[in-house]
């Protein structure tokens, strides 16, 4: 956990409530960037970043191509568009494209997770929240294969458990956790960080 460099989150049906519960507990000074794919209808402008910003201290933005990643910011995939992370020396930035849907999804959670795994290896934490598809399960496999970690929202707590269950089924090392547990762990890592790293 100390090596974490980025948190990537996938969510679909029932995901907004879970996102609010999870993210509103994190402080504005959270020490990592967060990238978020929520399946949304492709043709409408998404209010997601505004809705989440209303409830949370973190800063939210609908990601733009080549936007640099910063700690304490949450980058939301634009509707109808894949969002990935592109490494750039010590830094990284957002990469968007409109390639065909992957596994019926665009944005695709698989693509986000895979790109993070390749860019950050052990530095990745992938989180699967409520949802009705199996998007993200394959991406999480790449995350584990390259040394990262994965969490899935506890089935009894997720509004729709298909997506976290698929992640667990494909990834024996994925941890099933309630949102409260996720928050506690993320805050604990932050506490444990040496001072100069939290500055």
């Amino acid at each position: 956990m100390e090596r974490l460099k980025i948190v990537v989150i996938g969510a679909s049906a029932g995901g907004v409530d879970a996102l609010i519960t999870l993210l509103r507990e994190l402080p504005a000074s959270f020490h990592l960037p967060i990238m978020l794919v929520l399946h949304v209808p492709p043709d409408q402008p998404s209010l997601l970043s505004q809705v989440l910003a209303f409830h949370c201290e973190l800063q939210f933005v609908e990601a733009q191509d080549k936007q640099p990643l910063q700690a304490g910011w949450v980058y939301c995939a634009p509707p109808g568009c894949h969002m990935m992370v592109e490494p750039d020396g010590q830094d990284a930035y957002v990469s968007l494209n409109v390639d065909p849907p992957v596994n019926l999804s665009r944005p695709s959670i698989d693509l986000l997770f895979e790109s993070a795994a390749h860019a950050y290896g052990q530095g990745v934490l992938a989180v699967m929240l409520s949802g009705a598809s199996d998007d993200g399960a394959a991406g999480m496999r790449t995350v584990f294969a390259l040394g990262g970690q994965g969490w899935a929202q506890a089935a009894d707590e997720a509004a729709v458990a298909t997506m976290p269950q698929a992640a667990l089924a494909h990834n024996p090392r994925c941890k099933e956790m309630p949102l409260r547990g996720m928050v506690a762990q993320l805050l604990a890592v932050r506490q444990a960080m040496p001072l100069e790293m939290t500055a």
Partner: protein
Amino acid sequence: MCGRPDQSLATAVPVSDFDIQLHLLLEGVFLKYQHDFRNYSRSSLRRRVQQAMDHFGCTTVSGLQDKVLNDAELFSRMLQFFTVQHSEMFRDPQHFRLLAEEVLPMLATYPSIKIWVAGCSNGEEVWSLAILLHEQNLLERSVIYATDINAQALRTAESGIYASNRIAQFSTSYLEAGGRRSLSDYYHAAYDKAVFDRSMRRHMVFADHSLATDNVFSEVHLVSCRNVLIYFDRRLQDRALRLFRESLVPRGYLSLGSKESLAFSAHVDAFAPLHTEQRIYQLRA
């Protein structure tokens, strides 16, 4: 048009085995075929290389490298995997409407008009622009330079022939873009194809030109480079934008794709947004 690669383009250090092998493949392809994909966005390339591996029956990127470097014919087929050819006529109609209503009337003040469509793919954008120019009586004094690195796409672009089952969508977009006639005035149907008016072809110049390795070739009034820069990393995007800056006349126009933006580029201050939402910019004088 052939040039030397930029020494200043450097790539990020690969983390995974896949990325290490991808790095080597791209170096090999560059040395052997002078096609430079080294500064393409890795996150976009990985999927396409994976698809090429599946297609050519390779289990590793190194395996694909072995085949590609020893078989020039296979490389030309792999090029179809490395580049994304999706395009439409009047793609994002509101964008073309703005070009017609706000940009072309300004271009009309020049005695002759030069336009560069960079990354023209199968030419849908080129023929769309020619039609808009024609409807403002500007085509006669215009030249459209249409460039791409994909030779097969350039041949299609030059032919101006598209499958008829795409025409319904093109016609709808043409009207949404403010087209003044009927799209059918510009093509004739031949079996399952629509063949666009050859007389417009006289105002187009098609050329193999890479934004990664080639240089500026003409002064132009408008650069349209849509849905190309998203496939580049930041350095290569900046290189391409530098070429556009050098090519454009003072106050020349730049039009980008709907998911592209100058906001995070080294050249952001050189351009003023004319229409931020539709990604149309103007070079500052």
